[in-house]
């Protein structure tokens, strides 16, 4: 799947083409052609900068994961908004150590970002030489529930997506 020097980054190229069309706000043949050229050329130039990219990505689980994430973000926002608007003295903040099952920098990063984007949690640090995350949560009743939620809802699907 990871191809030649000429076309080193098929996902990236596709992604760039999409971005280009978004940027120019048009799907005219000219722009398609220009976008394709750029989508091929730019990865050639920047190939060296992204050598540790994920080798294989499973698209379907990725789409599902994205959907779940978007939904959770909306929910999280409402929850956090409520927390913020409520009296702050009621909040129970906590630092939580989250032991990772995932491997691979990219996958861990995606998980960390997901945690930061979702309900009341922020990945504060990567600890234990990359085997755990330190999470700050705005309001936690039960630490283990939170860990379990993250594990089930995000980490496992990511393992599937990145096959690691």
């Amino acid at each position, binding site marked *: 799947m990871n191809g030649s020097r000429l076309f080193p980054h098929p996902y990236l190229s596709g992604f760039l083409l999409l971005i280009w069309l978004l940027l120019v706000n048009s799907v005219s043949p000219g722009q398609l052609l220009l976008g394709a050229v750029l989508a091929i050329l730019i990865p050639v130039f920047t190939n060296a*900068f992204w050598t540790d990219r994920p080798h294989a990505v499973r698209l379907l689980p990725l789409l599902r994961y994205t959907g779940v994430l978007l939904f959770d973000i909306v929910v999280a926002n409402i929850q956090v908004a409520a927390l913020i608007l409520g009296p702050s003295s009621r909040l129970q903040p906590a630092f939580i150590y989250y032991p990772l099952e995932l491997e691979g*920098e990219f996958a861990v990063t995606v998980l960390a970002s997901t945690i930061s984007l979702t309900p009341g949690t922020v990945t504060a640090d990567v600890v234990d030489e*990359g085997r755990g995350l330190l999470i700050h949560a705005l309001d936690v009743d039960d630490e283990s529930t939170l860990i379990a939620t993250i594990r089930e809802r995000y980490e496992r699907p990511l393992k599937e997506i990145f096959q690691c």
Partner: protein
Amino acid sequence: MNSYFLPLIVALPFLGALLPPLFVRRGRTACAWSAALVTAAALALLLSVAAPVFDGDSLLFHYDWLPAYGFSLTFWLDGLGLLFALLILGIGLLVILYARYYLSEQDPMGRLYAFLLLFMGSMLGVVLSENLLLMMVFWELTSLSSFLLIGYWKHRADARQGARLALTVTGAGGLSLFAGIMLLGHIGGSYELSVLLASGDQIQAHPLYPATLVLILLGVFTKSAQFPFHFWLPHAMAAPTPVSAYLHSATMVKAGVFLLARLYPAMAGSELWFYLVGTTGMVTLLLGAYFALFKHDLKGLLAYSTISHLGLITLLFGLGTPLGAVAGVFHIINHATFKASLFMAAGIIDHESGTRDMRKLNGLWHYMPHTATLAMVAAASMAGVPLFNGFLSKEMFFAETLHQGWLGEWNWILPFGATLAGVFAVAYSIRFIHDVFFNGEPIDLPRTPHEPPRYMKVPVEILVALCLLVGIVPAWTVAPLLATAAASSVGAELPPYNLAIWHGLNTPVLMSVLAMVGGGVMYAMRHHLFALHARFFRPFDAKLLFERQLERVIAAARWLTMMLENGSLQRYMMLLLLSAVAMVAAGLWGRPLGGPLAPGEVDGVTLVGALALALSAVTTTIWHRRRLVALIQLSVVGLVVSVAFVRFAAPDLALTQLSVEMVTIILLMLVLYFLPQQTPAESSGLRKGRDILIAGAAGTSVALLAWGVLTRPYETIGDYFMEQSIPGGGGANVVNVILVDFRGFDTLGEITVLAIAAIGIVTMLRGLRLPTPDTDADGRPWASDRYPMILAVISRPLLPLALLVAVFLLLRGHNLPGGGFIAGLVTAIALILQYVASGTAWTRERININYVRLTAAGVVLAALTGLGSWGFGYPFLTSSFGHFHLPLVGDFELATAMLFDLGVYMAVVGSTLLVLANLGKLTLTKREATEGE
């Protein structure tokens, strides 16, 4: 007539000055010959054209040089000029001969002759110039060349100081003379003597005559060492004796009295002239004579005697009578001959005995009878003894002092003073003879004296012979020259005068007798007088005084300079800013400020933005001592400014402001790392208050200007650009079309500035060793995680994304907001993010571009795009564009301006990365060494 001989005569010594330094390698005699031949050649030229002058004709060479400014190269040989030219060249020749034997082996002979010839040429120029500006040129040259001559023995402090003293006094006098001459030229309407000498009445009637006279006389008196400017002359005695013999007999000091003689028809005859010139002459005459007696140094005696005799000549011209002028000219001749020979004799004595101190020199008659005889003749002439030439002119002088009537009942004071000076002159002349050649035996002389080499005496013999010939048979010798010289000085028919030795027993003869007897008596009483003099006159050294005063002036100058330039940027900045405020205030003062336009409504968001802007600007300032905090505040200012650009429909500006601000902040942080994190509280309350006032005034000034402009309508060239942008520039985004087309030249300059700055920065950073802080400002060790993983992982895919955006911005710039500059900054920032997230080494491994070359290539591309238009016969930077159609792709436009913009892009990427990466690299070595991660 051979009028072009005149400039040639003047030029010869100047050109010839090159010869002695060349010939000195072939020996001292050859060197002297080269100088002598040049002089002889000039003299021969002079004599070849001299004959008509004796008939009252004159020779004129004229070349219109700068007619608009009255500056012509006009030379003139009349009687006066001839006389002086003869003295200059004749005595010059003798001095050259004399110097050949005077100089020691160690003295660089070529240099002396070169300087001497330069001086000779300058003097010839002074006396032969007809145009006063031309004369002025040579006048200053005499000061300069005499400076070199006096300072010839540069290893001696007295020579150096004497030379500088002479230059300063005569140079300053020369500039005064210059002013006087310019005024004279203004009054007389010309700088040509032919015009000026004929308009004496008009000149003297002019209201500026007094100022003109004073200025000119300042030049004359300084040059001729008249009181109170006489003090430089004795110190000029530090020069080798041939130089003294030349400068102080026939030339340098005579330049002043020459000018008196020369300008006589134009300037003389007024009461002011009499009082200024006469008084100065009389005072100088007496003072010089007095001090001459008390000098123990042979040359010192001669120096003051010179001052005194110059005073005499000055007094004679000051009388303002034609016969006074005749006597003055005559005494110029006589003084030149006897004084030159006396200096040479003194030089021989010095040379052969090793000292010039008359208290040591005694009884030299036994050792050098020949020289003694010569010296005695010359001294007798100086004393005014009959049968010697000095007597004749002194008699005429005495006679003239009796014939003036300016002073009324005080008329007697002139003959009295003249006689008194005569008494002193006789006394010091006797001293010169008796103290040196008789008066017992010499007292520990450094050397046993003996007669000098044969040829060293020849010049003295010639001069002494002249003294005698003129003194005995004036009518057969000097008469024609004197007649023509005096006549041309007076500028009119001369009244009859008689050069006979004996006119019968008259008052002048009595005065002479009185002077002789009085002088003898005075010399006899000399020891009492010396004691008396020592009681009342502390030994007083003008040179030391000058040096001390000069040091004091220099100290004051240094103090003043230090006071002004105290090296404080804060003060300089304050002056600049205060001046700016003053300029704006002066410009706006008393004129209407506001214009007719309505100020326009303010909406709420704008107000909030304004508030945010003001607040963050103020907090930046208040907290400037906490640098990082202030930096954050400053970024808020930058952000709001770019939002303001959006608010007022200037997207290109907003984009640029945003990207530049980010690069700036990164830059500042890169630098701040090495600097103190806090600014010490060192401004006093007073200073802060003052600065707040200045800041307030500056802010108010700019606000007033803004208000004034914003409330006025105007007509702008911008409308033209709006119309022409598409048809002429091929782009819809007018701002961009201005940048790359209408005013592309500005942009070319701008990227050049960027490139130069980057080059300069990199140059500055080379070899810079900075202490890297081990802890942060609070003493906390730095975090150990150099490249946080999550940041690194996310940053990497952002690079292709950013490049895509950059290409997007670059391509659309011509029609929509964007352009090469913004695209360049986006690219640079994306790359810098890689540096931040993954490190310099990591990034450099992956991007192998020489940023200097990239920058240069960018500017080259822009410039070549500009040059491309030459090929089509259009001026630099003329753009062209066209619309094209390709199947599948559709319509698109290509413009050379896009190529130009690509150059801009490359230059921006290159220079930004050049700066940031090099700043970042500063720590690399040290950190890796200590942390070893």
